[in-house]
Every structure is written in structure tokens, then in C-alpha cells.
């Protein structure tokens, strides 16, 4: 029985776990708003359209503290991901969802009281709003209190990714409450001062922030009111700004990696066949595909596993993967940006607000195809360290060993001395046997590579 590490800022309620189930406690201070929202039909309408996570009333005696008014049980999100792990398209879709939820709420006389990117999760290839307590009744004339938060969580990162460099999205890992407006304004190219939307929502917004930093809201806003239609116009303008932002995923080495790989068609088919057979042996529910590139083998895994999380370091490869998910309407496949050599750490207050990658596991199966040579040779990570970390992440492992004679490894060693004496098939098996039992291995046809299926069951993890 415990309160979730990230759920403490909002006094209206919090999320907690009990006996393996997840609940949300609604506190008495928020009872009126919660009842008004429930009876308005807003929750039902949003859930019906797949915009809000569904919830059921739960036994109030499950409440964790005496301030409880009600307890609800939301549907579980299969894998929690964070904005700093999303590609451009995912962050943009999350932003559009937040604005659409806001517009739908306004139609029924409600408004979003916050616009945190952490209120969105991805389920079955689509963004879903997860914070049931984010709605409050709209009061005539009131501006949107979460406008700044929306800009810092969504608009500034998206503009930086689209106009400056897509890797700016990683700034969200440092700035958990969004990229500050003045930082965004300073980092954006000068030409964006000529773009009305960037000028208004970022540059002038940052200036206004600075000018009125010490002002009291009531003394500044005073009698100024904002009609509902003006608010809807503002939200509509932000929405079209977000929708117009675009980024083309091309030109990075990884986005074109599958096309430029040294695999023959026969080898690629053989590899897919072996991966499928290995996964059929254990029939995992959750697979983490590390270094998934554009998700070719994630889709092979998805034929067997209900959920595949498809990680890659390259934002362009992840973007292409995500666009494929959206275009084909694929479910159970979640592409995320992640550097296996520097995975997402635990972050936030007391390191408990945002979970590290390992805390979100272990997965039933970790796949590491055509990855180990990058970690061991390009990243200088000893094989034993790689094996130990993978044993922490998953119960079983499907891994590909790429020998030094492979052209991809030769390329990595082209301009540096070969200091990797242990990087051989023997050295690889020796290192991984310390953490796994090697269940089977199979050479890939028409290639020098070998695929292994390993399990941690019974293996020493020392």
C-alpha cells in the first residue's frame, strides 16, 4: 500500500497502489468539482472517444487517508513513458490531445486546471489523458491558468525540436516542469521572431514573464476579463500552431540504418525467423526491444507479445517507427527515444517522481539485436557490464552477437586501435554466462552473426 512517488503536488487527490491494483483517491476539497464533472457527462464523453483513461468507482474504504471523498480505479497504463522519451510526433500528438481535451471540456463548462505533459500516456499507439482530476468548472471571464505550463511542457520543446534541433527534446529530462520560456526564447533561431505564433506564445510570453515576475496576479489582471469565445480562439490558435510544426526524420545514420545494413535478404529473413522461434518458446507478454531502430524486429516480436516497447537512441528512427504505428493503426507497440548507454534515470523529488528504466521492468524478454557491438566497441562498455544490466532489465534475453569480422564492426574499428581482446564469441558467452543461462543459439543464415536465447532463471546475477 503506497502513494505513487509522482502524485503529491495536487491537493485534490493522489494515486496509490494497493494489493497490486492502482487507485486514485479524490479528496474532500475537490468533491464538488469531481461530482460536477461526473454528472456533466464529460468523463464519459472523453472516455468514449478514447481521449481519457477509463475509471470505475472503487470501495471508499480503500482510501489511504482520512481526507478521502471517493476512490476510483483507473485502467492501468501498460507501460509508463515520459515526455523526454517521446519522439517529436509523440510529443506533438500529446500536445494536440491536451488542447482537444481542453476544448471538449470548455464545451461542457469545464477547463483544464493544469496542462502537464505527464498527464498524457501512450496506450495502443495513441496518446491518452490520464489525470481524471485535472478538470474544474469554468468561471466566466477567467483566463487559462495552465497556459504557461502548456507552453513550457509542449510548445517550447516542440518549437525547439522543429526549428533548432530535434535533440532539444532531451532538455525535458533536465527541466521536469517544462523548458522555461526565457530559455526557449533564447535558444530559438532569430528568424522565429518573424513567426507570429512563436513571437506571441514564446518570445513575448517570455518578456511578459520577466516584466511581471514580481507582480501580484490580481493587481496585474485586475478587472481584465477574457470571454469564453476569446479563450476558445486562443486555444484554437495554439492548436493550429502545434499542428503546423513539423519535423522531417531523415539524414541521421540510424533512420537510414535498416536500408544501409549489411544484411542480405536471406539473412534478414533468417534473423526474423529465429527471433520469432525464440520468442515462441517463452511467449512473453512484454518485450523491450533495445536499439530497435525503426522497429522491424519489434513488429516480429509484436506477432507474439501483446506489448513491445521499441527503444532507440535516434530520434529520427523513433519518429519513423511512430509514424508507421500511426499510419497502420498498430496497437501494442510503443516507440521511445532512449540511449541504452545512458538510460533514463530516476528523477524528480527524492528521485521518486519519474522512474528509471529499470524500475519500470523487468520485461519478460529483452531483445538486443545488432546492439552489443555498439555498446562494447563504440561505447567501451565491458561485455560483463552489458550482461549484468540486461539481466536487471529482463527475465529472458534474445541477443545477437556480431563478430569483429562483420563489416559493421570493422567500420567501428576503422579509425581506432583494437583494444577489445575479449570481444569474441567465447568472450561474449563467458561474460553472459555469469548472468544468464544460454538456452540456445542459432547462426543467422548468410551472415556471420549468431542469435542467442538466454534466461536469468537460476543463473547467478552476481
Amino acid at each position: 500500500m503506497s502513494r505513487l512517488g509522482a502524485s503529491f503536488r495536487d491537493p485534490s487527490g493522489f494515486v496509490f497502489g494497493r494489493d497490486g491494483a492502482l487507485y486514485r483517491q479524490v479528496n474532500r476539497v475537490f468533491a464538488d468539482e469531481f461530482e460536477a464533472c461526473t454528472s456533466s457527462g464529460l468523463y464519459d464523453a472523453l472516455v468514449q472517444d478514447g481521449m481519457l483513461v477509463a475509471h470505475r468507482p472503487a470501495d471508499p474504504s480503500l482510501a489511504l487517508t482520512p481526507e478521502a471523498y471517493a476512490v476510483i480505479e483507473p485502467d492501468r497504463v501498460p507501460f509508463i513513458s515520459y515526455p523526454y522519451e517521446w519522439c517529436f510526433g509523440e510529443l506533438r500528438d500529446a500536445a494536440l490531445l491536451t488542447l482537444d481535451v481542453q476544448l471538449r471540456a470548455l464545451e461542457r463548462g469545464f477547463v483544464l486546471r493544469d496542462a502537464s505533459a505527464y498527464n498524457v500516456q501512450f496506450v495502443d499507439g495513441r496518446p491518452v489523458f490520464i489525470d481524471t482530476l485535472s478538470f474544474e468548472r469554468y468561471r466566466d471571464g477567467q483566463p487559462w491558468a495552465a497556459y504557461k505550463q502548456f507552453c513550457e511542457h509542449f510548445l517550447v520543446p516542440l518549437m525547439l525540436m522543429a526549428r533548432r534541433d530535434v535533440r532539444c527534446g532531451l532538455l525535458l529530462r533536465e527541466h521536469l516542469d517544462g523548458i522555461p520560456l526565457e530559455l526557449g526564447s533564447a535558444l530559438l533561431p532569430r528568424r522565429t521572431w518573424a513567426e507570429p505564433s512563436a513571437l506571441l506564445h514564446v518570445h513575448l510570453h517570455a518578456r511578459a514573464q520577466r516584466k511581471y515576475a514580481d507582480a501580484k496576479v490580481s493587481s496585474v489582471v485586475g478587472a481584465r476579463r477574457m470571454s469564453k469565445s476569446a479563450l476558445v480562439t486562443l486555444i484554437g490558435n495554439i492548436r493550429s500552431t502545434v499542428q503546423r510544426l513539423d519535423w522531417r526524420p531523415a539524414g541521421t545514420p540510424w533512420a537510414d540504418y535498416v536500408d544501409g545494413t549489411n544484411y542480405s535478404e536471406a539473412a534478414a529473413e533468417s534473423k526474423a525467423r529465429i527471433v520469432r522461434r525464440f520468442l515462441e518458446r517463452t511467449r512473453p507478454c512484454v518485450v523491450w526491444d533495445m536499439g530497435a531502430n525503426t522497429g522491424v524486429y519489434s513488429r516480429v516480436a509484436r506477432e507474439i507479445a501483446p506489448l513491445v516497447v521499441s527503444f532507440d537512441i535516434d530520434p529520427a528512427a523513433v519518429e519513423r517507427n511512430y509514424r508507421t504505428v500511426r499510419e497502420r493503426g498498430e496497437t501494442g507497440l510503443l516507440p521511445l527515444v532512449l540511449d541504452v548507454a545512458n538510460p533514463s534515470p530516476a528523477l524528480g523529488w527524492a528521485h521518486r517522481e519519474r522512474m528509471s528504466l529499470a524500475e519500470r521492468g523487468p520485461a519478460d524478454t529483452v531483445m538486443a539485436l545488432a546492439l552489443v557491438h555498439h555498446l562494447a566497441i563504440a561505447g567501451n562498455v565491458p561485455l560483463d557490464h552489458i550482461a549484468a544490466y540486461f539481466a536487471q532489465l529482463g527475465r529472458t534475453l534474445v541477443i545477437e552477437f556480431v563478430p569483429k569480422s562483420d563489416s559493421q564492426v570493422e567500420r567501428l574499428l576503422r579509425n581506432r586501435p583494437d583494444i577489445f581482446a575479449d570481444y569474441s564469441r567465447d568472450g561474449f558467452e563467458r561474460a553472459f554466462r555469469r548472468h544468464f543461462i544460454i538456452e540456445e543459439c542459432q547462426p543467422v543464415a548468410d551472415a556471420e552473426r549468431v542469435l542467442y536465447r538466454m534466461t536469468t532463471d537460476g543463473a547467478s546475477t552476481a
Partner: protein
Amino acid sequence: MYIDPAAGSLILQVVAAAALSVFAFVGRARRKTREFFSSILNRRRE
């Protein structure tokens, strides 16, 4: 309200929303005017 709405942000959005509403109104008025005159011209051609 449990987040800081920030005074600068509130004042900017009040001004911005007013300006955007004016632009939207002018845009709608221009479109309607154009539609009105083009319908008259079309009727004359017929």
C-alpha cells in the same frame, strides 16, 4: 488552482486572445464580404 498561473502569462493571454479575436472577426468579415460580392457577380453573369 495549485499551479502558479504567473502574472505575465495571464496578462499576455488576455491581450493575445483579444487580438486574435479581432483578427478572427476581421477574417470572417472579409470572407463574408467576398462571398457576398462574388454571389452578386455570379447572379449577374447568369
